[in-house]
């Protein structure tokens, strides 16, 4: 049981105004997995993440994190589950970055040496060492995003949940983000849950995805999901640009000598090279 990070069963969430946000959602994430929650705007992704972190209470169904029921152990769970909000300005509310990074640690009741050690470590892991005394409003959007990640990393979560992490990021910021996320996954075996509609970004940070639009529409490996482009479009999404290009190549010139449609530029390059070398 321990190796199940997140276990959601028959989850339903109704907003106070009676609007159904999520219905009949069951999700299982194993420890060390990289999972994406894909869905268009208003699909209930953020709501789902809030339910996982115990910030909202489900109307029906259950959420278990690390084998514990979220509604009963919310404080315990919060220290092992890091939620990065979509807008870093919501997450950085202290006068200095250092206070923001240590906020969670002090709430955990750690002693000072440990707080300092973990705080520094978190800033270093997102490449913001030396930014301790900086005020959040002086940071760029990319730096703010990294800072927001550092504030939850300091708590050494076993599960890292990111809500729309690429929103407002420039290409360089995105590249850095991918590097940071994957480093964490590699070095700390951190479990990743990324909610987004950025389909070009998803193949870089996840292996498996749930497609959500108030209800679960599909689940599976990214390759399988994105090769079913009709389903993807019906869900209000598009396959990644590279995948679309290969789809079109397939239809127009019969460029179909490949095992599965590539999702990233690296995969596409590999397929093209393979084709050329064969001819």
């Amino acid at each position: 049981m321990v190796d199940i990070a997140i276990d959601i069963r028959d989850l339903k969430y109704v907003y106070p105004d009676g609007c159904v946000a999520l219905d009949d959602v069951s999700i299982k994430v194993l420890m060390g997995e990289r999972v994406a929650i894909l869905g268009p705007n208003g699909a209930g992704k953020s709501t789902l993440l809030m339910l996982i972190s115990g910030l909202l209470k489900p109307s029906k169904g259950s959420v278990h994190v690390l084998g514990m029921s979220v509604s009963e152990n919310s404080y315990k769970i919060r220290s092992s589950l890091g939620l990065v909000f979509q807008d870093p300005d919501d997450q950085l509310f202290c006068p200095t970055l250092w206070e923001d990074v240590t906020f969670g640690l002090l709430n955990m009741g750690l002693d000072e040496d440990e707080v300092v050690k973990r705080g520094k470590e978190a800033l270093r892991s997102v490449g913001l060492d030396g930014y301790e005394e900086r005020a959040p409003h002086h940071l760029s959007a990319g730096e703010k995003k990294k800072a927001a990640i550092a504030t939850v990393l300091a708590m050494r979560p076993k599960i890292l949940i990111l809500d729309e992490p690429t929103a407002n990021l420039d290409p360089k910021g995105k590249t850095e983000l991918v590097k940071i996320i994957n480093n964490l996954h590699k070095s700390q075996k951190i479990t990743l849950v990324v909610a987004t509609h950025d389909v070009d970004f998803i193949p870089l940070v996840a292996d498996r995805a749930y497609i959500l639009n108030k209800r679960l529409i599909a689940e599976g490996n990214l390759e399988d999901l994105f090769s079913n482009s009709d389903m993807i479009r019906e869900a209000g999404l598009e396959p990644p640009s590279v995948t679309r290009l290969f789809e079109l190549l397939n239809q127009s010139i019969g460029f179909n000598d490949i095992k599965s449609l590539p999702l990233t530029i690296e995969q596409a390059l590999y397929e093209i090279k393979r084709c050329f070398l064969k001819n």
Partner: protein
Amino acid sequence: MLSSFLKIFEEIVYNERFISLNGFIQNIDPRAKIFSFTAFIVVAILARSIATLVILIMITFFLSIASKIPLKFFIIRTSFIPLFVTVIALPLLFITPGNSIFTINPVNITIEGIHKALIFTLRVWACVNSLILFTLTTRFSSIINAMEKLKIPKIFTMMISITYRFIFLSINEAYRMALAKESRTIKGESRLKTIKSLASMISTLFIRSYERGERVYLAMIARGYKGTTRNLNKMSINGKDMIFVFIIIAICSVTLSAEYFLGVV
């Protein structure tokens, strides 16, 4: 117009240029600063003679030079508030009874009136000087820390710190909304309509702030906030800080008692 106003506002609120300089006041413990500047302001409010106020203002100039803040910058920064105050003080010239020095019926300017208006302006200037000196030389986070160390309730310090953090964000949001409205206004509109759209803008801003407040609170809870927070920062008061407090209080009490007992004008 609005954007230049915002720029000035940001400059004033978030100016950190002088904080990291190795000047005199920068090196004083924030608690000692809060204490001394409060004493300073109390004296400025109690003072009744021009001489005392001029001495107090001179002290702030001296401290600004000692803290490596260019005097010209400091005077420009502080003087615009006394300018407003002068306008407010103008009626004092005419309504104060006493020896008139300039009369065109029914307008009557009296020496006492000039004296009163001058004292009022100088008093405000002295207070503004000391406050601006304080904020120019002290990081906002250490002001908050000092307040916490001085046992000011956490709920107040937290409110102040979050207000400071989000005030500019809200102003920026208002600015973006104003721009968005401006960009869709193609012909001049009536005053009434402008006021109406301003009102709806303000209400939208209210709702947005409320929603942000909610999200910030959730972000705090997500990191284990249970209603109380601990603080890491250590501060140490040393001999230098005590001497600073002592000197400021000494100067204040000497000038004040000189004024009261000797009747210096």
